[in-house]
């Protein structure tokens, strides 16, 4: 089963989706991500996000909650309910002190929050943390299958 972002070439640039219906905010996020060497994938609506997520291996989704024309929670729920996209970490962009939004995000299983306004350094650190843990998980999986293969070889008497 390909769960988005989990079985990809670790050497390629990470693909970060930016979901924001505001072109200005989206552009700033995209520029910062590009400058870090990531491949940004911009979606300006929930349906576009769902379509793009199906197409390409997305490692992390940055989802702006303060979008007037879209229910970010609804989108998050849809992503988390679909087994093909549930494993992709979602970073929710909220107002810095919006406790209710964060509580709801926690319930929906988001990976992290980014409080507006944030610095570029905070944005990158937040994205990197999710990429790090994805890399750790991949390493663990690789070690596990290597041990299992070794075990099989031994049982087969070589």
């Amino acid at each position, binding site marked *: 089963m390909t769960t988005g972002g989990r079985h990809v070439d670790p050497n390629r640039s990470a693909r970060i989706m930016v979901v924001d219906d505001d072109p*200005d*905010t989206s552009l700033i996020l995209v520029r910062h991500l590009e400058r870090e060497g990531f491949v940004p994938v911009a979606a300006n609506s929930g349906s576009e996000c769902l379509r793009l997520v199906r197409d390409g291996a997305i490692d992390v989704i940055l989802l702006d909650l303060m979008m007037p024309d879209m229910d970010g929670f609804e989108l998050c729920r849809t992503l988390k309910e679909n087994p093909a996209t549930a494993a992709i970490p979602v970073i929710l962009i909220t107002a810095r002190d919006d406790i209710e939004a*964060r509580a709801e995000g926690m319930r929906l299983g988001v990976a992290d929050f980014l409080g507006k*306004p944030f610095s570029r350094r905070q944005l990158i650190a937040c994205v990197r*943390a999710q990429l790090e*843990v994805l890399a750790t998980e991949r390493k*663990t999986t690789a070690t596990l299958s290597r041990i299992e293969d070794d075990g099989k070889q031994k049982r087969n008497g070589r």
Partner: protein
Amino acid sequence: MPEKTAQPEEQPDAPGGSGAIERVLIGQHPAIVKLRALIAKVALGDVTVLITGESGVGKEVVARAIHSLSPRRARPFVPVNCAAIPRDLLESEMFGHERGAFTGASGSRQGLFNAASGGTIFLDEIGEMPMDLQAKLLRVLEDGEVRSVGSDRAVKVDVRVIAASNHDLASSVRKGTFREDLFYRLQVVPIVVPPLRERRSDIPILVDHFLGLIAARGGGRQITVSREAMVHLWSYDWPGNVRELENMVERLAILCDDSVIDTPVLPPILISGPRPPVIEIPANLPAAGINLRMIVREIEGRYINQALKQTGGNKQAAAKLLGLKRTTFDDKLRRCGVIAPGGTDDKEEP
């Protein structure tokens, strides 16, 4: 001395050990679920394991889990903190010494490798081990023999070695402070434990787990955490990782009344957090002066945020609340709304 009479709690080959591991290595994050599977697998063999992870992530918990799921579980688990034992004592601590081996060695003494016989030795902070001792450890790993200080006789030992480091040993190898051959010999199975801030979704699970332990220990008073307080616990970066979270939960459980941990009992660091840069706006001009541009941006940023929050993100309405034209508002939002105002940590690259 190793206890020869200790009985295994379960049959060593019982496959149901994974239930036990879920009680010690808590969490549902995919990285932790995978880690548990790896531990269960690694425990069955005898290979050397190298555990890497920041301070407080639970490296010893992982080592103990491997031991307790292994066929060696009835034999001793001996933890050694290589950074806590003085350098010149470490060798005799690990391998023992003969009578008169050095000044003050009035009797012979068994080392920790002998004490761990048949079991597991856990060498924590292995990166701090002196180079000469690294060479001796390598020999132990290759030959399965230890030589105590002052002895010319090597003795066979049957010990599984699990090592741990809070930094990437590969970089120590590059810097020349850690032997490359030992590094490769240790990391037959590398295990990486992620920091807590990379798996925040496990924070509520861990908090519940620690509160459950506290309730079980002290008269059964089950403490809960308010929604808001949990959001703060979730949002904090936890540089001391799970250990820091555990200590904090214990502290909060003592501080709270009504069996509910609510925001007022949280220490300020958990609420403001180290994340948002806070810029002070002095009422009077201090003698040291101010950075006016930074302060103006901070004020703009704060009001823009509040306006967006009040209007549910409607920019037209937010602009109106601030008495700005939509175009001016958009301009300011571009500067302040996304990128933190006055972010001194946010130098633009050339």
